[in-house]
């Protein structure tokens, strides 16, 4: 593989020419590559040359390579209803658009975004467009995203729309048109960003060679735009997510990290006296603006859907008071319906005096008699789609249908419902898409595509359009937009400069950055997650040690003498007390193997598999706080190769690598402290468990040696004691010796240091409860003697550790809010 990447430029040019020639031979008319003039051809050719330079003649290899880059960046998206993420297929071939053509698109997008702002501020204000008959009231109320509580509330910051996205299609004639507008959830900019990074890595020198416009200035403008509408000069801005079950959670986490925004969920926020705060480990911190990525209807249970458990009670009031900017305004989705598109061309003329620079696809709203008659008469030549969000009775499932594809029964049902509720339907012209090359079966094939473009307001309120965007490509050649769906591949979109071989553009680097070493606010929920990530990882590691000692020393033929039966029973007891498995019938080899297998990989609670899944889940929702390598290790599949011992070993090495990454790669922030606190508390508890199982007066040399194995203190013991195993010496080493990094005392000192460094809320100078318990525990360990260590004392230590964990949770983590139940409220 590596040698292919060394293909010379001359070879690459030859390969690129051949690819293009073969592709053109069978590309349909209107294909974006095939129809291009000389400059366009040169750009595509340069791109393919880069591709060939890096991947040689094997297109499949190029595809793999791009995909690997995308995976590496942590790209992923979740299909609703699926719990597992799956990698996002990225086409290695970007869509190449020239600057001049792009300019027209960008102008059209800006015009459109402005128009949307104007219409929305009227609808949520004086509603003159309705009163004067330009928009029927039902066209507005038909949208499930028309939010009455937002009427007469001036959006803080001044804008209804701060971000805008639109789906464009390019017809075979080369004309660009708009398929859909997105204001409620203009998602995908994060995907565009990720695609660009992946393709830039895969295509190396292309960016500089073709003078391709960069994304960074757009995102800088977006962030500045958000900051500019806040009241405070150094505002705290958060991205409000619906959480990990949202299909675009990965995108949101990526954007938050890239833009330096706080990633928060509804439960992290509280409204007090009409101001919004985030609950952090250092108390409540004011929030100035929210980038809303939550369904607006779930945003505030007091203003919208009262059953929403993921919203922020009182947020709408805080908006009404002008104290928090929410972008886009919650009601902005009211005019992204299919039906609204039918009115846009006339509204553009009326409100701006100009035609739409980017035309819509032709749309007829059946809520008007003449339009309805037209649609009925031309059913076979149109797409029939729901006018608004809900699925009408005549289109079960809510999907748009080609009129010609309806069978007799469907057609009858549709026409009957259209008679009763014409307002639920639109007719749309059948749009044909032009094609672009993708790699399929090792060759370039033409496939229809759509393009999502993005715009955001910059600091001056003017619109900035992301140069490029997010292309979605169909996996079948049918060029009709209505049958394409969401698309199967995504591709980067490169806007290249007029002279394609110009050297690199040097965009000004932002050098007015205010330096800071404190990474800022740590929400309580994030601290909670990182704490439990630490606990689960240590818990898994401890259980793996027991499993390995049990199997390695009692079964493995080449790992030394088998353990005495009494020692084996103690090890079994340890696993039993962890709850990972139920007792084996005998201590025979086969029974022990089955027992260990259950503890390792059964689906039951407390098995290593279960613990691993918990850690993985937390890793998933903490990805904006963790190094990409940590996320990758956490998301690696549960090992299946080799015997039980091998699988346990693989996992143990993975956990050791995670511990190493946490220790060496996580910045020494409060976030890291919580992660480490979790690890230390769990490790302390594990030491106590092991001591309880092995440190009684009957303990044999075998037992003590096994204990040292489990406590990872074998070497420390040998360095200190030249004699053999002595119970008191072992007890001192694993429990009391602060110089042994695996001892309980060492963990407690580390915990106390963390608690000392973390913020406290009280200003009276007294210890907070969690600090007091840590101090007590520390004193207990300093004053006790190893010779006195018995079960009672070990139990006391265990209780202290549990109390410490509870005190940390109580002080730093969240309590849940529950909606008032209203069962049986209305009865008569």
């Amino acid at each position: 593989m590596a040698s292919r990447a060394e293909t010379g430029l001359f070879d690459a040019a030859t390969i690129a020419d051949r690819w293009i020639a073969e592709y053109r031979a069978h590309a349909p008319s209107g294909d974006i590559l095939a129809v291009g003039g000389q400059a366009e051809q040169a750009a595509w050719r340069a791109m393919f040359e880069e591709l060939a330079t890096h991947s040689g003649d094997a297109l499949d290899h190029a595809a793999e390579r791009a995909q690997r880059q995308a995976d590496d960046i942590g790209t992923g998206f979740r299909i609703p209803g699926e719990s597992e993420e799956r990698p996002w297929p990225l086409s290695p071939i970007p869509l190449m658009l020239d600057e001049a053509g792009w300019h027209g698109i960008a102008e059209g997008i800006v015009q459109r975004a402005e128009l949307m702002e104007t219409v929305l501020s009227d609808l949520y204000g004086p509603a003159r467009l309705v009163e004067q008959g330009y928009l029927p009231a039902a066209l507005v109320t038909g949208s499930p995203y028309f939010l009455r509580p937002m009427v007469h509330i001036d959006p803080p910051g001044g804008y209804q729309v701060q971000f805008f996205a639109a789906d464009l299609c390019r017809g075979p004639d080369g004309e660009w048109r708009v398929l859909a507008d997105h204001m409620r959830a203009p998602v995908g900019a994060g995907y565009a960003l990720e695609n660009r990074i992946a393709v830039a890595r895969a295509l190396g020198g292309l960016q500089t060679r073709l003078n391709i416009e960069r994304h960074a200035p757009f995102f800088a403008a977006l962030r500045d735009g958000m900051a500019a509408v806040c009241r405070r000069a150094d505002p705290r801005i958060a991205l409000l997510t619906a959480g990990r079950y949202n299909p675009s959670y990965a995108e949101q986490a990526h954007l938050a990290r890239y833009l330096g925004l706080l990633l928060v969920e509804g439960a992290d926020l509280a409204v007090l006296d009409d101001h919004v705060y985030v609950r952090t480990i250092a108390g409540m911190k004011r929030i100035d603006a929210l980038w809303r990525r939550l369904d607006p209807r779930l945003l505030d249970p007091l203003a919208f859907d009262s059953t929403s458990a993921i919203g922020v009670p009182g947020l709408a009031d805080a908006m009404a008071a002008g104290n928090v900017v929410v972008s886009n305004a919650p009601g902005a989705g009211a005019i992204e319906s299919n039906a609204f598109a039918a009115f846009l061309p006339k509204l553009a003329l009326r409100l701006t005096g100009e035609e739409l620079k980017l035309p819509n696809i032709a749309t007829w709203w059946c809520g008007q008699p003449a339009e309805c008659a037209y649609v009925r008469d031309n059913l076979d030549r149109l797409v029939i789609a729901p006018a608004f969000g809900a699925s009408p009775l005549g289109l079960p499932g809510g999907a748009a249908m080609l009129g010609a594809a309806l069978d007799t029964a469907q057609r009858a049902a549709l026409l009957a419902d259209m008679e009763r509720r014409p307002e639920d339907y639109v007719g749309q012209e059948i749009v044909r898409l032009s094609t672009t090359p993708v790699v399929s079966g090792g060759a370039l094939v033409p496939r229809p595509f759509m393009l999502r473009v993005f715009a955001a307001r910059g600091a001056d309120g003017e619109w900035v359009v992301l140069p490029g965007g997010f292309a979605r490509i169909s996996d079948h050649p049918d060029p009709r937009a209505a049958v394409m769906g969401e698309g199967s591949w995504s591709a980067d979109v490169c806007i290249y400069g007029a002279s394609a071989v110009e050297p690199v553009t040097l965009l000004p680097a932002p050098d007015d950055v205010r330096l800071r070493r404190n990474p800022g606010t740590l929400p309580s929920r994030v601290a909670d997650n990182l704490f439990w990530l630490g606990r689960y990882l240590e818990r898994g590691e401890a259980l793996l040690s027991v499993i390995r000692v049990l199997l390695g020393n009692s079964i493995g033929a080449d790992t030394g003498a088998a353990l005495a039966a009494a020692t084996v029973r103690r090890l079994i007891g340890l696993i039993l007390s962890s709850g990972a498995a139920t007792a084996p019938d005998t201590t025979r080899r086969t029974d022990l193997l089955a027992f260990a297998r259950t503890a390792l990989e059964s689906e039951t609670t407390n098995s290593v598999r279960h613990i691993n899944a918990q850690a993985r889940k937390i890793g998933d929702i903490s990805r904006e706080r963790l190094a990409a390598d940590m996320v990758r290790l956490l998301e690696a599949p549960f090992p299946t190769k080799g015997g039980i011992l091998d699988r346990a070993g693989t996992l143990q090495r993975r956990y050791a690598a995670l511990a190493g990454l946490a220790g060496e790669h996580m910045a020494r922030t409060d976030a890291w402290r919580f992660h480490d606190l979790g690890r230390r508390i769990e490790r302390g508890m594990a030491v106590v468990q092991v001591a309880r199982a092995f440190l009684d007066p009957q303990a044999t040399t075998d037992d003590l040696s096994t204990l040292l194995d489990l406590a990872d203190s074998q070497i420390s013991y040998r360095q200190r004691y030249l004699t053999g195993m002595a119970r008191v010496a072992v007890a001192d080493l694993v429990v009391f010796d602060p110089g042994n990094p695996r001892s309980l005392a060492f963990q407690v000192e580390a915990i106390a240091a963390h608690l000392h460094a973390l913020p406290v809320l009280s200003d009276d100078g007294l210890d907070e409860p969690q600090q007091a318990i840590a101090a007590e525990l520390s004193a207990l360990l300093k004053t006790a003697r190893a010779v006195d260590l018995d079960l009672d004392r070990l139990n006391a230590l265990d209780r202290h550790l549990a109390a410490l964990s509870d005190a940390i949770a109580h002080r730093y983590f969240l309590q849940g809010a529950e909606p008032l139940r209203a069962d049986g409220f209305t009865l008569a």
Partner: protein
Amino acid sequence: MHYAIRHVTRFDYAEPAGFARCNLRLKPIAWSGQALEDYHLSVEPGGHFVPARAPSGLANVLRLVIDQPTRTLTIESTARVTVDRPVPIPSSDDPTLADVARMALNSRDLSPAGPAAYLFPSPRIPLDPAIAQWCAQELAPDRGAPEAAIALARRIQSEFHFDPTATLVDTPPAEAFAKRGGVCQDFAQIMISGMRAAGLPAAYVSGYLRTLPPPGQERLVGADATHAWVLLWCGPDHGWIGVDPTNGIWMAGDHVVMAIGRDYADIAPIDGVMLGSGAQHMEVSVDVEPLEGAQ
């Protein structure tokens, strides 16, 4: 008729609830045919009220804020209302259902009192093919709108059985319809769903109904609850006309409107959030008493 209304809601919590934000939509709105003479709201233990900035529909919304831990919460709403509302008399001059559907679709009124918002399915009242088909039997387009509305209400009253055990507050209309049973909320939702499926603007009303005592007996105090029924917009001249599918009657002198919305979710008498854990128990009593000596 004058009424004294007392509506008490009591919440009990297993664990102290430390924080609550509630919307109270208990104060009857101003509506044609009724006048609010006197109103009082009390909450034990105290909290404070703030006017809600973002009203949801035709409702008087007060925001209750409680920041002290409490195990019980009692909300008592008392009102004196005069109702003088004639029974509608259908006539051949009434707009037909087809007229109503068309006028609603062409409406230029975006306000909560306009018909446009009530044409469409709402969060608690989706459109349902079975309900649509059943209701359509009474909803021929050429029928006079008020006459069709009362006919449908009567049909629901006669063919559905009142059964408080059949449904819960969040039972979807389709489920209650399949059971042919439920309470006022279910009947109202079924009727609204059916009317909207026919393209008609239908709204959900929560309010109170005077319960007539059986002959020779005292009225049962505190046995009643809040009631729900349906409004149909019948064009700009007739406005909203009410029918009560639970009883198969017109909304008239026995009905007191508390709030009007697209469905229960817009105008629940009390909803909101509390911070806490543990079980919650709720008790409601409503007493609608005709005042002595009043006509």
